[in-house]
């Protein structure tokens, strides 16, 4: 039989294919809209490859099951959305304190509270700034297409293991639900090595995983080491995609679906003779601050489906040395391209009077 590597996949499906091709061994999850297709696809595909899929009894159990598999040295993942991620925060803090690698996929929806299932981006602070207790951070990847959700699964596990850190893949309900053509990457050449530190029969039994340090000096030392790790990540792992940004006077910044909308808006603005460009962060932590600083834009605009959360990182990146505006919608509303175009012209004073 002949196989093809081109498929039509929802973002939510593509991330599972990517994870499996990247050697993910275990999936533990709990159903939640708009992330449920991830569990559906995992339930179909993980057992097909003899790997572990288990529907956990709750979000809390799911992240702790991930912790168990990760401690065993396996590539493990879970997926949820906003409120489910809130429940997972304790576990993510433990994973971070224990320096265990894991992939957490977050398909964001509207909040606060039960909110709705429409695509908000209001969990930026929760995911990018820590979320749980303690001075920890996670690497946050922000795919904006099904292809990227597939490809970034490789990046996610590689980074998670390189830095022994939790990696989020955070995107919104639109990207999760949109089906697109995906070219499947080649699978890993074979089963990967179990890491040296793992609680695995092939490793020394002196291996131990813990995040408790009774002595204050010991806990401070851990925290200093963690902060140094985060600095290293900031130096080495910033990723972004540029579109018409090199000579742009007005730079739109947006991730996930906002980045896609902003891209179309930039094309429209260029048609109207406005020198607009786009920086789409692919990593949110580390925020692509170096690239942002380098670009010559005179004014910046954060395009966000929240009250304006990423905008803080835009301002920090450039030390507030240029105006930074906000174009946003909330409640799960998606700004139209023409709305972004019109508000850009107005905010930057280029509106035709």
């Amino acid at each position, binding site marked *: *039989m002949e*196989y*093809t590597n081109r*498929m*039509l996949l929802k973002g939510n499906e593509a991330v599972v*294919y990517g994870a*499996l091709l990247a050697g993910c*061994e*275990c999936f*533990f999850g709990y159903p939640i809209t*708009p992330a449920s297709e991830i569990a559906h696809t995992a339930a179909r595909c993980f*057992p*097909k*490859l*003899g*790997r*572990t899929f*288990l529907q956990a*009894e709750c979000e809390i*159990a*799911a992240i*702790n*099951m991930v*912790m*168990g*598999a990760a*401690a*065993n040295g*396996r590539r493990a993942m879970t997926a949820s959305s906003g409120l489910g991620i809130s429940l997972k925060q304790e*576990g993510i803090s*433990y994973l971070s304190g*224990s320096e265990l690698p894991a992939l957490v996929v977050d398909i964001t929806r509207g909040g606060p509270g039960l909110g709705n*299932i429409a695509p908000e981006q209001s969990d930026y602070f929760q995911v990018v700034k820590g979320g749980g207790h303690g001075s920890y951070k996670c690497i946050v990847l922000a795919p904006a*297409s099904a292809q990227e959700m597939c490809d970034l699964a490789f990046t996610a596990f590689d980074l998670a293991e390189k830095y022994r850190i939790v990696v989020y893949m955070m995107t919104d309900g*639109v990207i999760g639900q*949109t*089906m*697109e*053509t995906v070219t*499947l990457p*080649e*699978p*890993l050449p*074979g*089963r990967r090595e179990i890491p040296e530190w793992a*609680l695995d*029969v092939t490793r020394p*039994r002196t291996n*131990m*995983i*813990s995040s*408790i340090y009774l002595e204050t000096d010991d806990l401070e030392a851990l925290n200093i080491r963690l902060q140094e790790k985060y600095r290293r990540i900031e130096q080495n792992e910033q990723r972004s995609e540029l579109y018409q940004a090199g000579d742009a006077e007005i730079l739109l910044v947006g991730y996930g*679906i906002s980045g*896609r*909308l902003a*891209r*179309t808006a930039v*094309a429209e603005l260029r048609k109207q003779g406005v020198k607009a460009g786009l920086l789409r962060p692919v990593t949110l932590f580390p925020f692509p601050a170096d690239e942002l600083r380098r670009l010559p834009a005179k004014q910046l605009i954060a395009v966000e489906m929240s009250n304006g959360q990423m905008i803080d990182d835009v301002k920090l990146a450039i030390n507030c040395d240029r105006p930074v505006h906000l174009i946003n919608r909330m409640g799960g509303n998606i700004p*139209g*391209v023409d709305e972004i175009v019109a508000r850009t012209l107005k905010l930057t004073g280029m509106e035709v009077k």
Partner: protein
Amino acid sequence: MADKILYGRSAGFFPTFERRPGPIKTNMHYCPGCGHGILHKLIAEAIQDFGIKDKTIIIAPVGCAVFSYYYFDCFGISVPHGRAPAVGTGLARANQENIVISYQGDGDLASIGFNQIIQAANRGENLAVFFVNNAIYGMTGGQMAPTTLPGQKTQTTPQGRSVSTEGYPLKVSETVAALDAPVYVERVALSTVQNIRKARLAIRKALTNSIERKGFSLVECLSGCPVNLKMHAKEMNEFLDNQMSRYFPLGVYKDIADSRDPLQRAEGIYDPRQVKELLYPVKVADGVSESFRNPSRIFEAERRIKLAGSGGQGVLSLGYMLATMGKLRNFNVSWLPSYGPEMRGGTANCSVVLSRHPIGSPLVERDCNLLIALNQSSLDKYLPELKRNGILLYDESNVRQPENTGEQILYTLPASDLATQLGDLKYANSVLLGAVAVMMCDLFLDDDDKADFDRVFEEAIMDCFREKETVVQANIRAFYIGKENARRISR
């Protein structure tokens, strides 16, 4: 002269406790008279005697035993409060070679983590759970536990536990034993020598079950906490053997391990050739080469399509068909459905975008090139979003011809009626695609692409309904009936 040791520390423990901070490296941190020391010793002896130190992982709970990894010469992990059974599930599922011990206190297991223990038990996870029930919170300083006895005074029940306020002590062994999956449940007491000997056997039985992959075992150990219960050793044993045992009777609650087959989990497949065979889709049609591009000019620009109707009309699958056709001809495509409760009844709509370039917004809004409307409300709602020179295709079985559409081009056919005549409303999709073919051929397609449209439709049908030959043939018939019946509305 060297001392002769008759009965020393088990080799299941480290020789000295170097992980313990501070100067004391030979003693445990537990208070005098505490049951943890006894239970630790019984476990350490068992993992030493069974020769399983290299594959045993002891999960340390939150509670006094949080530091158990100071002592045991095997793998250790400390986990969130109450979540040991979930972490244990992860460990046990990740590698069935692992011997996983979940060591939990009464607050951890029976209060904050009760859902985790019940669910892990109910799944029959291959875990040995050692549950220390001392009727009180130890680590946090003597608060009420779910197993605190009626009338028992604690920091948070200063007048004594009132069953009308705090409820009754939770009977964990009885509850777990009532489930179908667990293979072994016993309650023991870490009190007299006789009881400790029974506990020793129970622990070995639970670990044997784990080694033999029989599934879930739980040993509940009634245990002393002299400091928080404010008792001396003699009172403590009296409390365990008379007061606690009366409420929590000792004994075997379930033992069906002999009747169970060992759990057998699948082995993961990682060989890249096999992975591809299992995961990559089968190619159903010869199709075109990767470099093929339909030459007609229409495809140079991004094409944005909105499809809308009522739930059950097959709007989403019609959009999926169009997206599949695009995929088969090397377009970048996106297909975005309305999702969530909206899908279950009421209206359904989806956006399809085809492009030779990366697609910006997958949402088709006011820049729609083609609107396919299957019911009146969808037409009314989305017609204003159709471009000035856009194309409307509607199902005249359900939709009235709109007025004042200006430069917009209108195509129609009685898709639902034709589909019903064909035997099933679900053929309306393919009938409508026949109409799309007519419209495309009339207005946009070069001669080569005209024939290719029919080909790619047939390939897409095969792609969507692979191996269902009758469905494929019925849809192809519907497509050509659509082609025969579609007409442009002339003005």
